[in-house]
């Protein structure tokens, strides 16, 4: 990365020469549920877990404020 120039300007990202074959392979059915972007799928589940946890804690807090019975 040249000083003062972001990488995307000094050396713009280019896909590998075998981009079509790579793309075909990444979208192959053999990859199953993980698909072409397995890393993002893992991160999405981490997000959903955090979501569930925070949502549950808030309902728990609400139950302290408005007690039933």
């Amino acid at each position, binding site marked *: 990365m040249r000083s003062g120039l972001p990488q995307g300007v000094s050396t*713009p990202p280019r896909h590998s020469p075998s981009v079509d074959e790579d793309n075909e392979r990444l979208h192959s059915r053999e990859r199953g549920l993980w698909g072409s972007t397995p890393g993002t799928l893992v991160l999405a589940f981490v997000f959903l877990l955090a979501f569930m946890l925070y949502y549950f804690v808030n309902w728990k807090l609400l139950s302290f404020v408005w007690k039933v019975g």
Partner: protein
Amino acid sequence: MTAPEFRTCPVTGRRIHRDADALIRANAVAATVALLVGGIAAVLVLLTRWQAVHLLPAEWFYRILTVHGMSMLIFFILFFEMAILYFAGAVLLNSRVATPRLAWGAFWLMVVGALMVEWTMWTGRADVLFTSYVPLRAHPAFYLGVILFAVGALVVTGIFFGTLVVARRERTYTGSVPLVTYGAATAAIIAVVTLGHGAGIYIPTFLWSLGLMKVDPEVYRMVWWGLGHASQQINVAAMVSVWYLLGALTVGAVVLNEKISRSAFVLYVLFINLASAHHLLVDPGLSPAWKIVNTSYFMYMAVLASMIHGFTVPAGIELGQRLRGFGTGMFEWLRKAPWGDPGFSSLIFSIVVFGFVGGITGVTFGTEQINIIAHNTLRIPGHFHATVVSGTAMAFMGLTYYVIPLIFRKRVAFWPLARIQPYLFAGGMLVFSIAMTFAGTFGVPRRHWDISFAQAPFDVQFSPAVDVLIGTMAVGGLVAAVGGGIYILITVWSVFFGEPIEAREGANAVRPTPGGLDAPAPFPVR
């Protein structure tokens, strides 16, 4: 000899219209000035809310809080979004700007409106906070200034739509508009609705401030939030467009599926304004049915849109990286990403903090029952600092590191500082937002000058944990302020005193494969 109408960008290969170039520069500079004013106000507010310092007297606290809200949420964000509209319209479509003279007129109208509002706020004529709830009365120039600013912004959105028509008619592109332009168009559509609400409430309030008519406070709240929250939805649509843009520029991210991404943008247009109802959840005049329908059903359609983008943008980055050869294991694409490129690090921090902190807290507080315990506590500003500051402002900062070389054609000054700036800003804001949210969980009120309630007829004791949380919030806020200050220094220095770059220093006119900047998408999902 007159200057040529267009120049060709050496990196993206796009033809850039002279007026688009100049308008982007002017709006970006105005946005940075607004950020500086709002940033100074932010530090003053922070040092007052930090009970151990408690810097400002009550009168100045509310004055500066008003300055902070208006300068950041309206002037900084909207000036920057106007620059994005010129970029996404004229630059990405290789088109000229429709009606450049009117565009300059709109820009100066916005500047005059912003100056009027700033004058009334700094001189104590508008201590009404960002919401300016009736019956708090400001000087008429405050309302008139907001109206002028909003009209200017509305004209720019009209010029954006006009530019789309010009580009189509003059065949400057083929196929559908690029995804980034499509996203900017949804932001512009939401802007029209938002600014319509602004005119709908600020014109009668202006007349009220002159003593010519009455304004019902409850009606004011309902219509005003059509502006107040919806203006933040313009941010969301613009921010997501910037995510796609930065992904393409920094790592050659591809668009996973054009139809899905475009449908998600449409969900914003249809449902995001209804989410404004969550500001009225504890208002007594509105029926429970209305509140529940808006916040327990319609709001989630807008949330769905954000969750779709929250998946497709990182997935596009992952796929782009894998297609560049970083495909080993689960996370090589992330490990070998250009973390020293401030455009990329800003993009990732914007996605993560917006989603994990801003998104999760926002959806949770949007539930009517939970809103009862969160409403008017520090949890709310904790949420929106994670969305608007860590999300939108961070994304805009990342984009600036590309605007400086691509539009201003200057090197980014203080490069080593630029590389760490996103880490400082995002790290500080993350600590700030989380500490603020948890202080609110302990019941600390928002917008309050003195939470010790000194000299009040009643006594309110908070948990001792609140002192720790407020102190942590202050430290995080100060670190973020340093990050924001560095950003302003870099931007101003680069633009006005920066070293020009020569054309051959760019990408040697070799274009990357930027998903979202062209149509059709190069790699659709099968």
